[in-house]
């Protein structure tokens, strides 16, 4: 249900916004830390991802994104017990909207972001316990682009992810990433 709604909104929204504003887009790549929040069964790991960058409104930029993340292996706190459980892998895709940073240009350009997407968690080692279900999630965060040329910027951001789980629970993590954005078209 969520997936259908999400895809429908995306399909309707992005082309119309791009056409209305004139083509202005970019591509970005980023990597960094994946830090679990309130998850004793995971440790900090890594994340790597790509994003498209589409100017939707004068101050709002949409970023369809795809990320490949993994958690570090957790440690069991009991003497004599082996800590040999692997951390989970997360594949996510979604759309973030950022406000505050225009596309391209020099200087420090801070922004806020709000996003949503789908997250697939898997841990091969545990078999049927973690089957790789895809879950809906929200994200929000802060970051800054640092222009290093008219069409290129270093992008640093922190993104808090909340992924729905069974019942009222969620899985939470923070992506702390650095990356590069390249912009095409007009600003």
């Amino acid at each position, binding site marked *: 249900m969520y997936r259908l709604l999400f895809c429908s909104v995306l399909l309707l929204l992005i082309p119309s916004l791009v056409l209305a504003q004139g083509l202005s887009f970019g591509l970005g790549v980023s990597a960094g830390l994946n830090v679990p929040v309130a998850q004793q069964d995971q440790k900090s790991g890594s994340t790597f991802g790509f994003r498209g960058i589409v100017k939707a409104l004068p101050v709002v930029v949409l970023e369809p994104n795809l990320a490949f993340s993994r958690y570090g292996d957790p440690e069991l706190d009991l003497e004599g*017990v*082996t800590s040999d*459980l692997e951390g989970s892998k997360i594949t996510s895709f979604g759309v973030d909207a950022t406000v*505050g940073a225009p596309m391209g240009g020099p200087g420090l350009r801070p922004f806020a972001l709000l996003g949503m997407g789908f997250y697939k968690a898997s841990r091969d080692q545990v*078999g049927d316990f973690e089957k790789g279900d895809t879950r809906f999630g929200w994200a929000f965060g802060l970051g800054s682009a640092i222009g290093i040329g008219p069409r290129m910027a270093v992008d640093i951001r922190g993104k808090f992810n909340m992924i729905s789980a*069974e019942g009222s629970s969620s899985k939470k993590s923070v992506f702390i990433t650095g990356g590069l954005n390249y912009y095409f078209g007009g600003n």
Partner: protein
Amino acid sequence: MKRTTLWYGVFGAVIVALVITGCYIVSGTFVIIKKFTFTTETGFYHELVDVTSEADWNNHKDEIDDIELVGFELWFTNNEAFDVTFNAYVDGPGAPEYTTFADVDANADKVLDNLILPAGPGTKTHITYGNSFKFIENVDKLKKAAFNGKFHFYGVSSGGTASGFVVDSAVVVVTFSAHGS
């Protein structure tokens, strides 16, 4: 500038709404580790595993949403002349304590299947937590049993005479998710 401020306001409002409406913000995943030794030993083992006295379980017992993982760490000694096969079963805390393999086989759910334990004087085998998942089956029934925080855990060995085989100790690791109140 005014428009940017407006959008920051919209973003902030959405985030606050997510928090206020309880969109999964206050929740966590907890890991409980319980070590035990079986109370009976001669080819048939039983323990009423109980994690309800553990602090994390107690603090969240009314808010548990899911048992995410149940794994085991087991230490065996097989002094027999032949390899021994070990299987484990679980049943809910409300079930009676079975005293025969026939009752266990008929009523409980097998969760550890066919651990083959090599034989020889003083031969020890250690099944680690991560490795135990290779032998676990009936995951949904194991999760259901563990959801109570208490469950009957039976071990049954076959092969050899049983007198030279012992489960030295065992650890159960329960990972659960719970939301805040």
